[in-house]
């Protein structure tokens, strides 16, 4: 398998798209990918899955490789990219169908990815979430955990869909075991902190509401 990915990287490096696609096809990777993804994302029509999701993921891989980025496992990159694209597709479809239901517009259905505002909205939400998450990083304890998580969120901001522990390990000079442990602890702690903060915020807003009511009563 390593041999296949070496050849795929080489083909992309010399801008030979035809060779890259041919390699993916002759190896059976595209066949297995199509079958697996079709079974996994049954709600996405086959044509859309091929065109909007799988084909776009292959293009994404090519773009990264041709720009000189080193992707250790191109197959894994495509796999994860498809995941994100499929999630986005489903989300968008749901939003649009809600909208259509609301306005009873069923004719001239608009393709979700023909609407550039959708991508902008999604980016905007993602960036806002990134700002919030980064505020929590210094509360993750150990320095290694903080730096590993910071690296991961930098990758997300750069729209990198595949980050392997091996890559983080190389980039930060940590052992892969440390990276794995840091990732596991980081995600666990992030979720816990976010949960606690959300709760605290809710309690605070309720307390403020009560104070406001009490103040109003006093004024009255």
């Amino acid at each position, binding site marked *: 398998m390593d041999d296949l990915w070496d050849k795929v990287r080489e083909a992309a490096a010399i801008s030979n798209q035809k060779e890259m696609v041919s390699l993916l*096809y002759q190896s059976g*990777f595209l066949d297995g990918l199509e*079958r697996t993804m079709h079974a996994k994302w049954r709600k996405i029509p086959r044509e859309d899955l*091929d065109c909007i999701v799988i084909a776009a993921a292959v*293009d994404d891989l090519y773009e990264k490789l041709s720009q000189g980025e080193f992707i250790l496992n191109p*197959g894994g990159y495509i796999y*994860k990219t498809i995941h994100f694209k499929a999630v986005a597709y489903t989300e968008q479809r749901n939003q649009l169908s809600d909208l259509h239901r609301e306005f009873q517009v069923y004719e001239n259905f608009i393709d979700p990815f023909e609407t550039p505002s959708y991508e902008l909205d999604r980016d905007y939400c993602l960036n806002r*979430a990134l700002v919030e998450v980064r505020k929590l990083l210094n509360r993750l304890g150990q320095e290694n955990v903080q730096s590993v998580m910071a690296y*991961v969120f930098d990758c997300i901001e750069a729209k990198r869909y595949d980050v392997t522990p091996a890559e983080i390990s190389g980039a930060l000079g940590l052992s892969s075991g440390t990276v794995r442990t840091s990732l596991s602890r980081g995600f666990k702690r992030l979720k816990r902190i976010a949960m606690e903060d959300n709760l605290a915020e809710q309690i605070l807003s309720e307390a403020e509401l009560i104070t406001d009511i009490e103040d109003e009563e006093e004024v009255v």
Partner: protein
Amino acid sequence: MDEKWIRMFELVQLAQTLTSDVEKEVEEIISLGQEQLLNREDSIRLLTSIIESLRKGNDIRGDTSSAASLSGDISEIVGEMVAIREELILRRKNSMINKIQNNRINLQNRNGISVQPVFPSPWFHEKEVPMVGGFVRTQDIRLWENNDRLDIHIHQFKKINGRDPEDRELLDIMLSKMPLPGINEKDEFKIMDLARSIANNGVRRPAIIDLDGTLLDGNRRVSACYFILNSKEFTSEQKARIEYVYVWQLTEHATDDDRRRVVVSMNFEKDHKQDWPEYVKASKIYEDWQAMLALEPYANPIRQRELKRELSQQYALGPDARYVTRYIRMFEEAEEFELFHIEERERDEYEVKHKAAEYFQYFDELTKGSVKSALQDKTFRSLVYDLLFQDKFTNWKQIRDLPRIANNEDARKLLRQSRAETEDIEEAQDKVVSACSEVQVTSREARVVGANERIENFTKFLMQLPIGSFADGTIKQESLYRLKDSLRHVNMLIQDHEGMTFEDEDDELAV
């Protein structure tokens, strides 16, 4: 939850997916793709989408050099890719056919049965797959190393030896003769029992082989045949019977999909065959046993053991007599139970027989040492038989508490109350559970009597033991290991209770 937090959780989730290892998934995708290639039409559709997407990307990026490699008519580019692969597949297929033709195993006519197509053609997983039936020399059949049943074993073997197992080694794996870490069972695939059955009855269901003799179905049956051929347990007549076996063989027109269907159908779809209940098996054996004794009423114990061995062979239960002895013992106890209910309780014979069959496994426990002694007490036995008939025991393990219940008036009282309770079955069953708990607690109390003194004495003894006795063989190795295990257990208990180990305590003391 606030939108902000929802987005944040989504982001963390996304990050988690992003960093997960998907190497295994990718490997699976490739092997799935190689096994189930897309057809021409689907290939063309997918490749066209990909090339269109790449071209679109090139336009957006203004990447002219990349665009050059995909210039021209899309259908021509796609057609070329598909044609290359089709040619490759054809070449591979031809070389496989040649390989198969060279290694082809030809079926033979035997015992008046000639080689001919299986009629009607068998169906496998919703598809008709033509086969030819005939005889093949057992030794020419190759065990199937890709059998999923052996998946872990084969991988383990490869890891240890750095290569695929040979046919002989595959057989050793099937016979559990290959020492592989983690396998403790003596006969993991139950080949011995199957071999005994085949030695008596022959191979009843034909194994299915590929053209080159590779097994697609019947690994256990063929392993059992190999075992028979190489074991002293079987007679030359039995060996001769399975030297050639009747098999079904795929034809040269079989596709990989046909092979897959055979495997799926034979291994995943149940044939709904149900074994006879133990009670029925035991009754057959018991019947024969009585017939044997009728012919030889004065058979001494040694002769009786021989007869039981004979019976065991007849029923494919192995060369020793223990299964037959067990069945006979259980069946005799079941008969006692039946007799009691039919004669003393005047119940319907068949209702009682059904009950005996239902609880047949319990009779195994009822005939063992201390339980059997406890049932010598007729009143207690009546009580137990009544409870068994009334479905008051919920677990065969409860039978094991009977000897202690027999000697404990409070527990016996609970059993009597259970018998008397005819309205609420759960309440009655709870009383049996309480009776068992009663004797378990009492027994626990008995076990802890004088615990401190015993520990004191033992530790004093241990500390005074000359060190040399550990080295000169006075203390046996197994005793030493048992002591080590006990100390480890004590250490664990202390840790659980105080969060402290011996080492911690030592450190603390040192400070």
